[in-house]
Protein backbone atom coordinates (compact mmCIF):
# COMPACT_ATOMS: atom_id res chain seq x y z
CA UNK A 1 0.00 0.00 0.00
CA UNK A 2 1.95 2.93 -1.25
CA UNK A 3 -0.06 4.94 -3.73
CA UNK A 4 -2.56 5.97 -1.10
CA UNK A 5 -0.90 9.15 0.11
CA UNK A 6 -3.16 11.24 -2.12
CA UNK A 7 -6.28 9.72 -0.58
CA UNK A 8 -5.99 10.88 3.04
CA UNK A 9 -9.17 10.95 5.10
CA UNK A 10 -10.01 14.44 6.34
CA UNK A 11 -9.76 14.86 10.10
CA UNK A 12 -13.26 16.29 10.49
CA UNK A 13 -14.57 12.75 10.30
CA UNK A 14 -12.90 10.08 12.39
CA UNK A 15 -14.07 6.62 11.31
CA UNK A 16 -12.56 5.00 14.41
CA UNK A 17 -14.58 7.25 16.68
CA UNK A 18 -17.70 6.44 14.70
CA UNK A 19 -16.82 2.75 14.80
CA UNK A 20 -16.61 2.84 18.59
CA UNK A 21 -20.27 3.87 18.70
CA UNK A 22 -21.32 0.51 17.20
CA UNK A 23 -21.05 -2.18 19.91
CA UNK A 24 -21.46 -5.12 17.53
CA UNK A 25 -18.32 -4.16 15.63
CA UNK A 26 -16.23 -5.10 18.66
CA UNK A 27 -17.30 -8.73 18.49
CA UNK A 28 -15.47 -11.65 16.93
CA UNK A 29 -16.74 -14.34 14.59
CA UNK A 30 -14.95 -17.71 14.44
CA UNK A 31 -12.33 -16.21 16.74
CA UNK A 32 -11.52 -13.42 14.28
CA UNK A 33 -12.35 -9.72 14.59
CA UNK A 34 -15.44 -8.93 12.56
CA UNK A 35 -15.06 -7.11 9.25
CA UNK A 36 -18.61 -6.18 8.32
CA UNK A 37 -18.94 -5.41 4.62
CA UNK A 38 -22.58 -6.31 4.05
CA UNK A 39 -23.93 -2.84 4.72
CA UNK A 40 -25.95 -2.57 1.53
CA UNK A 41 -28.02 -5.48 2.84
CA UNK A 42 -28.35 -3.99 6.32
CA UNK A 43 -26.22 -1.63 8.38
CA UNK A 44 -25.30 -2.02 12.05
CA UNK A 45 -26.78 0.27 14.73
CA UNK A 46 -25.06 2.94 16.83
CA UNK A 47 -25.61 3.37 20.59
CA UNK A 48 -27.83 6.37 19.89
CA UNK A 49 -30.32 4.11 18.11
CA UNK A 50 -30.05 1.28 20.65
CA UNK A 51 -30.70 3.75 23.45
CA UNK A 52 -33.70 5.26 21.64
CA UNK A 53 -35.18 1.77 21.27
CA UNK A 54 -34.53 0.95 24.91
CA UNK A 55 -36.06 4.20 26.10
CA UNK A 56 -38.97 3.78 23.68
CA UNK A 57 -39.97 0.53 25.34
CA UNK A 58 -38.63 0.97 28.87
CA UNK A 59 -39.78 4.50 29.61
CA UNK A 60 -42.15 5.92 27.03
CA UNK A 61 -44.21 3.15 25.54
CA UNK A 62 -47.91 3.22 24.70
CA UNK A 63 -49.97 3.20 21.51
CA UNK A 64 -49.95 6.38 19.44
CA UNK A 65 -52.75 8.78 18.45
CA UNK A 66 -55.34 6.95 20.54
CA UNK A 67 -54.93 7.24 24.26
CA UNK A 68 -55.47 10.38 26.27
CA UNK A 69 -53.01 9.41 28.96
CA UNK A 70 -49.48 10.54 29.69
CA UNK A 71 -47.58 7.72 27.98
CA UNK A 72 -49.73 7.76 24.89
CA UNK A 73 -49.08 11.49 24.52
CA UNK A 74 -45.37 11.00 25.05
CA UNK A 75 -45.11 8.15 22.58
CA UNK A 76 -47.15 10.08 20.01
CA UNK A 77 -44.83 13.07 20.42
CA UNK A 78 -41.78 10.88 19.88
CA UNK A 79 -43.36 9.15 16.91
CA UNK A 80 -44.27 12.44 15.23
CA UNK A 81 -40.84 13.88 16.07
CA UNK A 82 -39.36 10.96 14.13
CA UNK A 83 -41.51 11.91 11.16
CA UNK A 84 -40.17 15.46 11.46
CA UNK A 85 -36.59 14.08 11.54
CA UNK A 86 -37.21 12.20 8.30
CA UNK A 87 -38.66 15.35 6.73
CA UNK A 88 -35.57 17.32 7.84
CA UNK A 89 -33.24 14.58 6.60
CA UNK A 90 -34.83 14.60 3.15
CA UNK A 91 -35.43 18.36 3.22
CA UNK A 92 -39.14 17.87 2.64
CA UNK A 93 -41.25 20.99 2.96
CA UNK A 94 -43.60 19.50 5.57
CA UNK A 95 -43.68 16.48 7.85
CA UNK A 96 -47.11 15.61 6.39
CA UNK A 97 -45.33 14.59 3.20
CA UNK A 98 -43.69 11.68 5.04
CA UNK A 99 -45.62 8.40 5.26
CA UNK A 100 -44.30 5.73 7.58
CA UNK A 101 -44.04 2.36 5.84
CA UNK A 102 -42.49 -0.95 6.79
CA UNK A 103 -39.52 -0.25 4.51
CA UNK A 104 -38.79 0.84 0.97
CA UNK A 105 -40.48 -2.25 -0.47
CA UNK A 106 -43.68 -1.19 1.25
CA UNK A 107 -43.19 2.43 0.13
CA UNK A 108 -42.80 1.36 -3.51
CA UNK A 109 -45.86 -0.88 -3.28
CA UNK A 110 -47.78 2.03 -1.78
CA UNK A 111 -47.05 4.19 -4.83
CA UNK A 112 -47.88 1.34 -7.20
CA UNK A 113 -51.15 0.59 -5.43
CA UNK A 114 -52.43 4.02 -4.40
CA UNK A 115 -51.02 6.32 -7.06
CA UNK A 116 -50.28 4.25 -10.16
CA UNK A 117 -52.90 1.52 -10.25
CA UNK A 118 -55.96 3.78 -10.60
CA UNK A 119 -54.16 5.82 -13.28
CA UNK A 120 -52.73 3.02 -15.44
CA UNK A 121 -54.56 1.71 -18.50
CA UNK A 122 -53.49 -1.05 -20.88
CA UNK A 123 -50.59 0.14 -23.01
CA UNK A 124 -49.45 2.83 -20.58
CA UNK A 125 -45.72 2.73 -20.00
CA UNK A 126 -43.55 2.73 -16.89
CA UNK A 127 -39.85 3.44 -17.37
CA UNK A 128 -37.38 1.55 -15.17
CA UNK A 129 -33.66 0.93 -15.49
CA UNK A 130 -31.87 -2.38 -15.77
CA UNK A 131 -30.21 -1.51 -12.42
CA UNK A 132 -33.38 -1.92 -10.37
CA UNK A 133 -33.75 -4.06 -7.26
CA UNK A 134 -36.62 -6.55 -7.44
CA UNK A 135 -38.57 -4.38 -5.01
CA UNK A 136 -38.71 -1.68 -7.69
CA UNK A 137 -39.57 -4.20 -10.40
CA UNK A 138 -42.15 -6.60 -9.04
CA UNK A 139 -44.80 -3.99 -8.05
CA UNK A 140 -44.68 -2.74 -11.67
CA UNK A 141 -44.91 -6.30 -13.00
CA UNK A 142 -48.15 -6.51 -11.00
CA UNK A 143 -49.47 -3.57 -13.03
CA UNK A 144 -48.28 -5.26 -16.21
CA UNK A 145 -49.99 -8.54 -15.28
CA UNK A 146 -53.21 -7.00 -13.96
CA UNK A 147 -53.69 -3.88 -16.08
CA UNK A 148 -51.58 -4.33 -19.20
CA UNK A 149 -48.95 -1.75 -18.28
CA UNK A 150 -45.83 -1.89 -20.44
CA UNK A 151 -42.44 -1.90 -18.70
CA UNK A 152 -39.63 -0.09 -20.52
CA UNK A 153 -36.06 -0.72 -19.43
CA UNK A 154 -33.34 1.90 -19.71
CA UNK A 155 -30.01 0.22 -20.48
CA UNK A 156 -26.58 0.88 -18.99
CA UNK A 157 -23.11 1.11 -20.43
CA UNK A 158 -20.54 -1.59 -19.61
CA UNK A 159 -19.10 0.58 -16.81
CA UNK A 160 -22.48 0.51 -15.06
CA UNK A 161 -23.50 4.08 -15.89
CA UNK A 162 -26.93 4.78 -17.32
CA UNK A 163 -27.28 5.24 -21.08
CA UNK A 164 -28.81 8.71 -20.91
CA UNK A 165 -29.69 8.93 -24.60
CA UNK A 166 -31.50 5.63 -24.51
CA UNK A 167 -33.28 6.71 -21.33
CA UNK A 168 -34.53 9.91 -22.91
CA UNK A 169 -35.81 8.03 -25.97
CA UNK A 170 -37.95 5.84 -23.71
CA UNK A 171 -39.95 8.85 -22.52
CA UNK A 172 -43.07 9.12 -24.67
CA UNK A 173 -46.62 10.40 -24.30
CA UNK A 174 -47.54 6.90 -23.13
CA UNK A 175 -45.10 7.12 -20.18
CA UNK A 176 -47.06 7.46 -16.96
CA UNK A 177 -44.21 7.13 -14.48
CA UNK A 178 -40.44 6.89 -14.23
CA UNK A 179 -39.52 4.57 -11.33
CA UNK A 180 -35.77 4.26 -10.91
CA UNK A 181 -33.11 3.75 -8.31
CA UNK A 182 -31.10 6.65 -6.93
CA UNK A 183 -28.10 4.37 -6.40
CA UNK A 184 -27.71 0.76 -7.52
CA UNK A 185 -27.53 -1.76 -4.67
CA UNK A 186 -25.60 -4.20 -6.83
CA UNK A 187 -23.07 -1.95 -8.60
CA UNK A 188 -23.03 1.24 -6.56
CA UNK A 189 -23.82 3.34 -9.65
CA UNK A 190 -25.24 6.76 -8.74
CA UNK A 191 -27.82 7.96 -11.21
CA UNK A 192 -27.83 11.65 -12.24
CA UNK A 193 -31.25 11.92 -10.64
CA UNK A 194 -31.73 15.66 -10.95
CA UNK A 195 -31.05 15.57 -14.68
CA UNK A 196 -33.29 12.53 -15.23
CA UNK A 197 -36.10 14.12 -13.25
CA UNK A 198 -35.82 17.31 -15.30
CA UNK A 199 -36.04 15.25 -18.52
CA UNK A 200 -39.17 13.49 -17.30
CA UNK A 201 -40.81 16.62 -15.91
CA UNK A 202 -40.24 18.41 -19.21
CA UNK A 203 -42.70 15.86 -20.59
CA UNK A 204 -45.04 16.03 -17.60
CA UNK A 205 -43.99 12.59 -16.26
CA UNK A 206 -43.66 12.14 -12.48
CA UNK A 207 -40.60 10.39 -11.07
CA UNK A 208 -40.19 7.96 -8.20
CA UNK A 209 -36.71 7.36 -6.78
CA UNK A 210 -35.92 4.20 -4.87
CA UNK A 211 -33.63 5.68 -2.23
CA UNK A 212 -32.85 2.43 -0.40
CA UNK A 213 -29.13 3.02 -1.02
CA UNK A 214 -29.22 6.64 -2.15
CA UNK A 215 -30.50 7.91 1.20
CA UNK A 216 -27.60 6.17 2.95
CA UNK A 217 -24.80 7.58 0.83
CA UNK A 218 -26.06 10.69 -0.97
CA UNK A 219 -28.04 12.79 1.54
CA UNK A 220 -30.89 13.43 -0.89
CA UNK A 221 -32.65 16.77 -0.98
CA UNK A 222 -36.12 16.05 -2.32
CA UNK A 223 -36.87 19.71 -3.03
CA UNK A 224 -33.63 20.29 -4.89
CA UNK A 225 -34.20 17.07 -6.85
CA UNK A 226 -37.83 18.08 -7.38
CA UNK A 227 -38.63 14.35 -7.10
CA UNK A 228 -42.26 13.26 -6.83
CA UNK A 229 -41.77 10.14 -4.68
CA UNK A 230 -38.75 9.03 -2.65
CA UNK A 231 -38.60 5.69 -0.80
CA UNK A 232 -36.26 4.97 2.12
CA UNK A 233 -35.73 2.04 4.47
CA UNK A 234 -34.63 2.31 8.08
CA UNK A 235 -32.38 -0.68 8.54
CA UNK A 236 -29.90 0.43 5.89
CA UNK A 237 -29.82 3.91 7.46
CA UNK A 238 -28.32 2.63 10.75
CA UNK A 239 -31.86 2.32 12.12
CA UNK A 240 -34.20 -0.58 12.94
CA UNK A 241 -35.75 -2.97 10.43
CA UNK A 242 -39.51 -3.00 9.91
CA UNK A 243 -39.68 0.75 9.37
CA UNK A 244 -39.16 2.99 6.37
CA UNK A 245 -40.84 5.92 4.74
CA UNK A 246 -42.25 7.33 1.57
CA UNK A 247 -41.80 10.98 0.75
CA UNK A 248 -44.40 12.22 -1.72
CA UNK A 249 -45.28 15.72 -2.83
CA UNK A 250 -48.37 16.91 -1.04
CA UNK A 251 -50.29 17.35 -4.31
CA UNK A 252 -49.83 13.64 -5.05
CA UNK A 253 -50.74 12.53 -1.54
CA UNK A 254 -53.94 14.58 -1.62
CA UNK A 255 -54.97 12.89 -4.88
CA UNK A 256 -54.06 9.35 -3.81
CA UNK A 257 -56.53 6.73 -2.65
CA UNK A 258 -55.90 4.95 0.65
CA UNK A 259 -53.46 2.03 0.71
CA UNK A 260 -54.63 -0.42 3.35
CA UNK A 261 -57.85 -0.13 5.29
CA UNK A 262 -58.03 -0.20 9.05
CA UNK A 263 -57.92 1.87 12.17
CA UNK A 264 -56.19 5.25 12.29
CA UNK A 265 -56.62 6.03 8.57
CA UNK A 266 -60.28 7.07 8.68
CA UNK A 267 -62.25 10.20 9.38
CA UNK A 268 -65.57 8.49 9.93
CA UNK A 269 -66.94 5.00 9.49
CA UNK A 270 -70.64 4.16 9.43
CA UNK A 271 -72.41 1.00 8.36
CA UNK A 272 -72.97 2.52 4.92
CA UNK A 273 -69.95 4.74 4.28
CA UNK A 274 -66.38 5.57 5.12
CA UNK A 275 -64.40 8.77 4.77
CA UNK A 276 -60.66 8.96 5.06
CA UNK A 277 -58.18 10.90 7.10
CA UNK A 278 -55.87 13.46 5.49
CA UNK A 279 -52.30 12.51 4.59
CA UNK A 280 -50.13 11.21 6.10
CA UNK A 281 -52.55 9.21 8.31
CA UNK A 282 -54.70 8.15 5.36
CA UNK A 283 -51.86 5.81 4.39
CA UNK A 284 -51.03 4.47 7.84
CA UNK A 285 -53.65 1.91 8.83
CA UNK A 286 -53.33 0.04 12.10
CA UNK A 287 -50.85 0.36 14.92
CA UNK A 288 -47.53 1.32 13.32
CA UNK A 289 -44.09 0.05 14.34
CA UNK A 290 -43.92 2.82 16.94
CA UNK A 291 -40.56 2.28 18.56
CA UNK A 292 -38.95 1.35 15.24
CA UNK A 293 -40.09 4.72 13.87
CA UNK A 294 -38.58 6.45 16.90
CA UNK A 295 -35.39 4.44 16.30
CA UNK A 296 -35.28 5.56 12.68
CA UNK A 297 -35.67 9.16 13.80
CA UNK A 298 -32.73 8.65 16.17
CA UNK A 299 -30.63 7.14 13.37
CA UNK A 300 -31.28 10.08 11.08
CA UNK A 301 -30.61 12.58 13.89
CA UNK A 302 -27.32 10.73 14.42
CA UNK A 303 -26.48 10.97 10.71
CA UNK A 304 -27.43 14.65 10.55
CA UNK A 305 -25.06 15.42 13.44
CA UNK A 306 -22.07 14.16 11.44
CA UNK A 307 -19.84 16.41 9.37
CA UNK A 308 -21.48 15.10 6.23
CA UNK A 309 -19.05 16.35 3.55
CA UNK A 310 -16.22 14.80 5.57
CA UNK A 311 -18.18 11.58 6.03
CA UNK A 312 -18.82 11.41 2.29
CA UNK A 313 -15.13 12.02 1.63
CA UNK A 314 -14.36 9.06 3.91
CA UNK A 315 -16.69 6.77 1.94
CA UNK A 316 -15.22 8.06 -1.33
CA UNK A 317 -11.76 7.25 0.02
CA UNK A 318 -12.84 3.71 0.98
CA UNK A 319 -14.25 2.86 -2.42
CA UNK A 320 -11.31 4.44 -4.25
CA UNK A 321 -8.90 2.48 -2.07
CA UNK A 322 -10.85 -0.75 -2.60
CA UNK A 323 -10.76 -0.27 -6.38
CA UNK A 324 -7.07 0.49 -6.19
CA UNK A 325 -6.39 -2.74 -4.26
CA UNK A 326 -8.60 -4.78 -6.60
CA UNK A 327 -6.72 -3.31 -9.56
CA UNK A 328 -3.55 -5.01 -8.33
CA UNK A 329 -4.86 -8.47 -9.24
CA UNK A 330 -5.90 -9.55 -12.72
CA UNK A 331 -8.04 -12.40 -11.36
CA UNK A 332 -10.45 -9.97 -9.70
CA UNK A 333 -13.06 -8.31 -11.89
CA UNK A 334 -15.08 -5.43 -10.45
CA UNK A 335 -18.50 -4.83 -12.02
CA UNK A 336 -19.46 -1.19 -12.25
CA UNK A 337 -16.41 0.98 -12.70
CA UNK A 338 -17.98 4.32 -13.53
CA UNK A 339 -16.58 7.22 -11.50
CA UNK A 340 -20.15 8.07 -10.49
CA UNK A 341 -20.54 5.37 -7.89
CA UNK A 342 -20.95 5.01 -4.17
CA UNK A 343 -19.22 2.75 -1.65
CA UNK A 344 -20.27 -0.61 -3.09
CA UNK A 345 -17.90 -3.01 -4.86
CA UNK A 346 -19.38 -5.95 -6.72
CA UNK A 347 -16.94 -8.36 -8.29
CA UNK A 348 -16.27 -11.77 -9.76
CA UNK A 349 -13.12 -13.80 -9.26
CA UNK A 350 -11.52 -16.30 -11.64
CA UNK A 351 -11.91 -19.89 -10.49
CA UNK A 352 -14.20 -19.24 -7.54
CA UNK A 353 -17.94 -18.80 -7.40
CA UNK A 354 -19.35 -15.96 -5.23
CA UNK A 355 -20.94 -18.42 -2.79
CA UNK A 356 -17.71 -20.26 -2.24
CA UNK A 357 -15.87 -16.96 -1.80
CA UNK A 358 -18.43 -15.76 0.72
CA UNK A 359 -18.41 -19.01 2.72
CA UNK A 360 -14.61 -19.07 2.70
CA UNK A 361 -13.91 -15.47 3.71
CA UNK A 362 -16.69 -15.58 6.32
CA UNK A 363 -14.41 -17.95 8.23
CA UNK A 364 -11.75 -15.20 8.18
CA UNK A 365 -14.29 -12.92 9.83
CA UNK A 366 -15.21 -11.04 6.66
CA UNK A 367 -18.94 -10.67 6.01
CA UNK A 368 -19.94 -9.93 2.41
CA UNK A 369 -22.96 -10.74 0.28
CA UNK A 370 -22.93 -13.25 -2.57
CA UNK A 371 -25.75 -13.79 -5.00
CA UNK A 372 -27.85 -11.87 -7.48
CA UNK A 373 -28.59 -9.07 -4.98
CA UNK A 374 -32.26 -9.13 -6.00
CA UNK A 375 -31.21 -7.63 -9.32
CA UNK A 376 -31.56 -10.53 -11.76
CA UNK A 377 -32.12 -8.39 -14.89
CA UNK A 378 -28.80 -6.70 -14.10
CA UNK A 379 -27.03 -10.05 -13.59
CA UNK A 380 -28.41 -11.16 -16.97
CA UNK A 381 -27.10 -7.91 -18.50
CA UNK A 382 -23.57 -8.86 -17.41
CA UNK A 383 -24.20 -12.57 -18.08
CA UNK A 384 -23.18 -13.62 -14.59
CA UNK A 385 -25.35 -15.72 -12.26
CA UNK A 386 -24.10 -13.91 -9.20
CA UNK A 387 -21.43 -11.60 -7.83
CA UNK A 388 -19.68 -11.09 -4.53
CA UNK A 389 -20.43 -7.67 -3.07
CA UNK A 390 -18.49 -5.71 -0.49
CA UNK A 391 -20.52 -2.71 0.63
CA UNK A 392 -19.14 -0.07 2.94
CA UNK A 393 -20.52 2.06 5.73
CA UNK A 394 -19.25 5.08 7.64
CA UNK A 395 -17.57 2.86 10.25
CA UNK A 396 -15.48 0.87 7.77
CA UNK A 397 -11.79 1.61 7.37
CA UNK A 398 -8.96 0.95 4.97
CA UNK A 399 -7.93 -1.84 7.33
CA UNK A 400 -11.25 -3.55 6.56
CA UNK A 401 -10.39 -3.37 2.86
CA UNK A 402 -6.98 -4.89 3.61
CA UNK A 403 -8.58 -7.69 5.64
CA UNK A 404 -10.91 -8.38 2.73
CA UNK A 405 -7.95 -8.55 0.35
CA UNK A 406 -6.00 -10.89 2.65
CA UNK A 407 -9.02 -13.19 2.84
CA UNK A 408 -9.46 -13.13 -0.95
CA UNK A 409 -5.80 -14.01 -1.45
CA UNK A 410 -6.23 -17.06 0.81
CA UNK A 411 -9.39 -17.97 -1.04
CA UNK A 412 -7.51 -17.72 -4.32
CA UNK A 413 -4.95 -20.26 -3.04
CA UNK A 414 -7.68 -22.83 -2.49
CA UNK A 415 -9.71 -22.39 -5.64
CA UNK A 416 -7.27 -21.28 -8.34
Amino acid at each position, binding site marked *: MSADAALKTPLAFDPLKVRAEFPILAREVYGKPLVYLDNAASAQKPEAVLEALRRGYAEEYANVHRGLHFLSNRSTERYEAARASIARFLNAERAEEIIFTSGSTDALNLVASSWAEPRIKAGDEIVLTILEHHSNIVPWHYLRERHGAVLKWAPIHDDGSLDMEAFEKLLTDRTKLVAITHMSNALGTILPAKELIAMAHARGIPVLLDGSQGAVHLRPDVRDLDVDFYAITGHKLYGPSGIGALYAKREHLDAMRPYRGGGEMIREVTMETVTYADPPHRFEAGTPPIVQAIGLGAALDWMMALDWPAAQAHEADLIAYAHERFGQFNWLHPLGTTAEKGAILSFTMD*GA*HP*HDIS*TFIDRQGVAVRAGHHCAQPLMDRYDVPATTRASFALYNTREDVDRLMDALLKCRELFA
Partner: protein
Amino acid sequence: MDDALRDLYQQTILEHGRKPHNFGRLDPHSHAAKGSNPMCGDRVVVTLTVDGGRVADIRFEGRGCAISQASASIMTDLVKGRPLDEVRTLLDAFTAMATTGETPGGGLAEDDREAIRLMSGIHAFPMRVKCATLGWRTLEAALDNQSQTTTEAQPGKQEAAR
Protein backbone atom coordinates in the same frame (compact mmCIF):
# COMPACT_ATOMS: atom_id res chain seq x y z
CA MET B 1 -8.19 -22.74 7.08
CA ASP B 2 -10.44 -24.20 9.77
CA ASP B 3 -11.63 -27.80 9.95
CA ALA B 4 -15.19 -27.12 8.83
CA LEU B 5 -13.88 -25.45 5.67
CA ARG B 6 -11.40 -28.25 5.09
CA ASP B 7 -14.21 -30.82 5.39
CA LEU B 8 -16.38 -28.90 2.99
CA TYR B 9 -13.76 -28.14 0.38
CA GLN B 10 -11.97 -31.49 0.23
CA GLN B 11 -9.61 -32.02 -2.67
CA THR B 12 -12.02 -34.45 -4.37
CA ILE B 13 -14.81 -31.91 -4.22
CA LEU B 14 -12.63 -29.12 -5.56
CA GLU B 15 -11.59 -31.37 -8.46
CA HIS B 16 -15.21 -32.26 -9.28
CA GLY B 17 -16.03 -28.55 -9.05
CA ARG B 18 -13.26 -27.58 -11.45
CA LYS B 19 -13.77 -30.40 -13.92
CA PRO B 20 -17.25 -31.82 -13.46
CA HIS B 21 -17.90 -35.31 -14.82
CA ASN B 22 -20.69 -35.97 -17.32
CA PHE B 23 -21.01 -32.25 -18.02
CA GLY B 24 -23.21 -31.24 -20.94
CA ARG B 25 -26.49 -32.14 -22.48
CA LEU B 26 -27.69 -35.60 -23.49
CA ASP B 27 -29.63 -35.58 -26.79
CA PRO B 28 -31.80 -37.43 -27.38
CA HIS B 29 -32.90 -38.17 -23.84
CA SER B 30 -35.95 -39.67 -22.17
CA HIS B 31 -36.07 -37.38 -19.13
CA ALA B 32 -34.99 -33.80 -18.49
CA ALA B 33 -35.53 -31.09 -15.90
CA LYS B 34 -34.32 -27.62 -15.04
CA GLY B 35 -33.56 -26.82 -11.45
CA SER B 36 -32.93 -23.45 -9.92
CA ASN B 37 -32.09 -22.01 -6.55
CA PRO B 38 -34.08 -18.77 -6.41
CA MET B 39 -32.11 -17.59 -3.40
CA CYS B 40 -28.84 -17.43 -5.31
CA GLY B 41 -29.65 -17.76 -9.01
CA ASP B 42 -27.85 -21.08 -9.56
CA ARG B 43 -29.33 -23.14 -12.39
CA VAL B 44 -28.83 -26.76 -13.41
CA VAL B 45 -30.23 -28.84 -16.27
CA VAL B 46 -30.21 -32.64 -15.94
CA THR B 47 -30.82 -34.84 -18.99
CA LEU B 48 -30.89 -38.63 -18.84
CA THR B 49 -32.02 -41.71 -20.68
CA VAL B 50 -33.84 -44.45 -18.82
CA ASP B 51 -33.71 -47.78 -20.57
CA GLY B 52 -34.93 -51.12 -19.19
CA GLY B 53 -35.51 -49.59 -15.74
CA ARG B 54 -31.94 -48.26 -15.53
CA VAL B 55 -30.28 -44.90 -15.96
CA ALA B 56 -28.48 -45.71 -19.20
CA ASP B 57 -26.77 -42.33 -19.41
CA ILE B 58 -26.96 -38.96 -17.66
CA ARG B 59 -25.49 -35.50 -18.02
CA PHE B 60 -25.87 -32.18 -16.32
CA GLU B 61 -25.04 -28.63 -17.22
CA GLY B 62 -25.33 -25.36 -15.42
CA ARG B 63 -23.55 -22.66 -13.56
CA GLY B 64 -23.06 -22.55 -9.88
CA CYS B 65 -20.72 -22.76 -6.97
CA ALA B 66 -18.10 -25.46 -6.42
CA ILE B 67 -20.51 -27.27 -4.09
CA SER B 68 -23.44 -27.42 -6.51
CA GLN B 69 -21.22 -28.40 -9.44
CA ALA B 70 -19.30 -31.05 -7.48
CA SER B 71 -22.46 -32.48 -5.98
CA ALA B 72 -24.12 -32.80 -9.40
CA SER B 73 -20.93 -34.30 -10.85
CA ILE B 74 -20.66 -36.91 -8.09
CA MET B 75 -24.37 -37.63 -8.50
CA THR B 76 -24.03 -38.42 -12.22
CA ASP B 77 -21.12 -40.78 -11.50
CA LEU B 78 -23.16 -42.50 -8.81
CA VAL B 79 -26.42 -43.06 -10.65
CA LYS B 80 -25.16 -43.87 -14.13
CA GLY B 81 -26.01 -47.49 -15.04
CA ARG B 82 -28.04 -48.01 -11.84
CA PRO B 83 -31.60 -49.40 -11.59
CA LEU B 84 -34.19 -46.76 -10.75
CA ASP B 85 -34.99 -48.16 -7.30
CA GLU B 86 -31.33 -47.82 -6.33
CA VAL B 87 -31.28 -44.27 -7.70
CA ARG B 88 -34.25 -43.41 -5.46
CA THR B 89 -32.47 -44.90 -2.46
CA LEU B 90 -29.38 -42.82 -3.21
CA LEU B 91 -31.51 -39.71 -3.63
CA ASP B 92 -33.17 -40.22 -0.25
CA ALA B 93 -29.84 -41.01 1.39
CA PHE B 94 -28.21 -37.89 0.00
CA THR B 95 -31.11 -35.66 1.01
CA ALA B 96 -31.07 -37.12 4.51
CA MET B 97 -27.30 -36.70 4.77
CA ALA B 98 -27.41 -33.07 3.62
CA THR B 99 -30.12 -32.11 6.08
CA THR B 100 -29.10 -34.16 9.12
CA GLY B 101 -25.38 -34.74 8.58
CA GLU B 102 -25.97 -38.48 9.07
CA THR B 103 -25.63 -41.05 6.29
CA PRO B 104 -28.40 -43.61 6.63
CA GLY B 105 -27.08 -47.17 6.65
CA GLY B 106 -30.03 -49.20 5.39
CA GLY B 107 -29.89 -50.43 1.80
CA LEU B 108 -26.67 -48.66 0.83
CA ALA B 109 -23.50 -50.38 -0.36
CA GLU B 110 -20.30 -49.26 1.35
CA ASP B 111 -19.04 -47.52 -1.83
CA ASP B 112 -22.26 -45.56 -2.13
CA ARG B 113 -22.15 -44.55 1.50
CA GLU B 114 -18.61 -43.29 1.10
CA ALA B 115 -19.45 -41.32 -2.03
CA ILE B 116 -22.36 -39.67 -0.28
CA ARG B 117 -20.33 -39.04 2.86
CA LEU B 118 -17.87 -37.01 0.77
CA MET B 119 -20.29 -34.13 1.01
CA SER B 120 -21.23 -34.49 4.67
CA GLY B 121 -19.20 -31.35 5.49
CA ILE B 122 -22.12 -29.35 4.09
CA HIS B 123 -24.06 -29.96 7.27
CA ALA B 124 -21.88 -27.40 9.10
CA PHE B 125 -23.04 -24.76 6.57
CA PRO B 126 -26.86 -24.65 6.71
CA MET B 127 -27.00 -21.83 4.18
CA ARG B 128 -25.24 -24.01 1.63
CA VAL B 129 -27.30 -27.21 1.91
CA LYS B 130 -29.45 -26.16 -1.05
CA CYS B 131 -26.33 -25.80 -3.21
CA ALA B 132 -25.53 -29.45 -2.53
CA THR B 133 -29.05 -30.73 -3.13
CA LEU B 134 -29.83 -28.73 -6.31
CA GLY B 135 -28.59 -31.39 -8.76
CA TRP B 136 -30.29 -34.21 -6.88
CA ARG B 137 -33.59 -32.35 -6.68
CA THR B 138 -33.39 -31.72 -10.42
CA LEU B 139 -32.76 -35.41 -11.08
CA GLU B 140 -35.76 -36.25 -8.91
CA ALA B 141 -37.92 -33.80 -10.88
CA ALA B 142 -36.75 -35.34 -14.18
CA LEU B 143 -37.60 -38.86 -12.97
CA ASP B 144 -41.02 -37.60 -11.82
CA ASN B 145 -41.58 -36.12 -15.30
CA GLN B 146 -41.61 -32.53 -14.02
CA SER B 147 -39.85 -30.16 -16.35
CA GLN B 148 -38.70 -27.83 -13.59
CA THR B 149 -38.12 -27.57 -9.91
CA THR B 150 -36.57 -25.25 -7.38
CA THR B 151 -34.77 -25.78 -4.13
CA GLU B 152 -37.77 -24.09 -2.47
CA ALA B 153 -40.23 -26.76 -3.66
CA GLN B 154 -41.29 -29.48 -1.24
CA PRO B 155 -39.57 -32.80 -1.93
CA GLY B 156 -41.75 -34.98 -4.12
CA LYS B 157 -44.15 -32.14 -4.93
CA GLN B 158 -44.50 -30.12 -8.06
CA GLU B 159 -43.73 -26.44 -7.93
CA ALA B 160 -46.92 -24.56 -7.19
CA ALA B 161 -48.61 -22.91 -10.15
CA ARG B 162 -48.15 -19.17 -10.34
